[in-house]
């Protein structure tokens, strides 16, 4: 997978393992800026069911570093134009 530069006003989102199967995509661009708290809702809107099947147990990185999804009352993180977000579900088989 090569990672294309997102168009102006967008960030790149990469999907791995079951996130790839669910979205049928490796990569796409989404409008930036976006609050990390809202990321899962934006994805659920596009891919119905992805929250329960994939996102809830996946880890999320921004620019190759792990981020915690902020809970109610916790400080939010803003995904900026040009950022690279990745959705990484655990792989269990071997």
């Amino acid at each position, binding site marked *: 997978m090569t990672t294309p530069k997102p168009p102006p006003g967008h960030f790149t989102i990469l999907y791995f*393992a079951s996130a790839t199967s669910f979205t*049928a995509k490796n990569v796409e661009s989404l409008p930036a800026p976006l609050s990390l708290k809202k990321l899962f809702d934006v994805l659920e809107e596009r891919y*119905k069911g992805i929250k329960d099947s994939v996102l809830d147990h996946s*880890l999320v990185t921004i620019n*190759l570093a*792990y981020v915690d999804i902020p809970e109610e009352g916790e400080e939010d993180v803003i995904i900026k134009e040009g950022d690279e977000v990745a959705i990484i*579900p*655990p*792989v*269990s088989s071997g």
Partner: protein
Amino acid sequence: MQLNSTEDSRPNGVAIATNGEHNGFSRRLTDEEFDRYSRQMIVPGMGREAQLRLINSKVLIIGGGGLGCPAAQYVAGAGVGTIGIIDGDVVEPSNLHRQVGHATSRIGMKKVDSLITHLRDLNPLPTYTPYTYPISPENAADIISQYDLVLDCTDNPATRYLISDVCVLLCKPLVSAASIQKSGQLIVLNCPPTPQGKVDKKYPPCYRCCFRKPPPANTQLSCGEAGIMGPVVGLMGVAQAGEAIKILASALHLPSSIPSNPEDDPHNLIQPTLLIYSYDLTAAPGPFTFRALKMAPRKKNCFACGENSPQTLTLEGVKSGNPNYIQFCGIQTPKIVLPEQDRITASAYHAARQNGQLQNHILLDTREKEHFSFGSIDGAVNVPFGKLLMKAATIKRHGGDAEEILPVEISEDQKDVPPIFVVCRRGLDSQEAVEKLKELGVDRGGKRKIVDIIGGMKAWKEEVDPSFPFI
């Protein structure tokens, strides 16, 4: 991932020399050891002491399959002195494309015995300890406690959580890898090993710190169901051996290798990294798709290693079934069962076709196109399950003609609405597909029958066509 090279650059607090005097670290290498390990010993950062540390180490490899085989080969080749291997399975022909420690001549043999046969031939010097049964909450601590480092080469979430928990409790470093289809993951956990509950500084994470909860049971796939490319899982297994050798040769498996002040740790010991490999069969060769992701340190609120974890996770608890790993990871139960009138056995469907009752009908096969490519029932049209769900979701959201989901043209005013039969691999997806189609109104308010073929192509092979190539 660099080797921590010389004695001098090792983080403070590692007392190799004193530790070693009693355990044969100061002995000479035998001629045989010298010949066998010379090529790795002369690599900068290795040397005699690192080799002796490998020889004096004990490694447990949990799982003798696609990860365990390549990992064990390199661990044994490098001269790790004691190697335990645990697995309850036997060698099958479908293992051999990736499980390189087995052989055609050993099909039917216990995997552990087969792999040790291979390893003894490669290097007779280590002591090999076979455990020919699966790891379980009852036996995990007794076995793991006898080793310095653990490789998780298993194939299911419940076992992964169990192994990580017990490694935290026993203060053992864990090299964890996993792989399915075209993806691989690798992470070193709990290294340097840190006592449970310590959160006053930055410490290495456990499996639960990274993956808080398992995927829902109905989305967990095995390599048998989803497939696996040999080189992908092989690469992950080899990388596991590489990390294990690095940790042992540099004595990072000793609890005392935790830097006293992580802030100025020159070795980035507490910078856990998740390596991701994705292998795209449709892409041009390269660019290689490795990604190294910076993971967070130990989580304060982690169930297994966090602040209050000594109250939530104990060795006695694990042994007596608390936590319940099977329940935590969900039990694989067949999901929906449709009412009887919406289902037909493979043999009854076949008979209806044979005696002419079923001339005009639509047969949807919801298997993946790769499965479909090996063979299908005459007249079947392939609509892979994932695509069907996607289309259904789009129609539900944005509206549109529900029947466009069908791969065939049917005019609105056609009086005789042909029934639809749905078949999948083993009879689960097809039931969900029938439900989805009805939900969308493809049954035209009950005028059209939509029927599930019970047991899928597996049943078709068993009941109708024994020569059908079912995979």
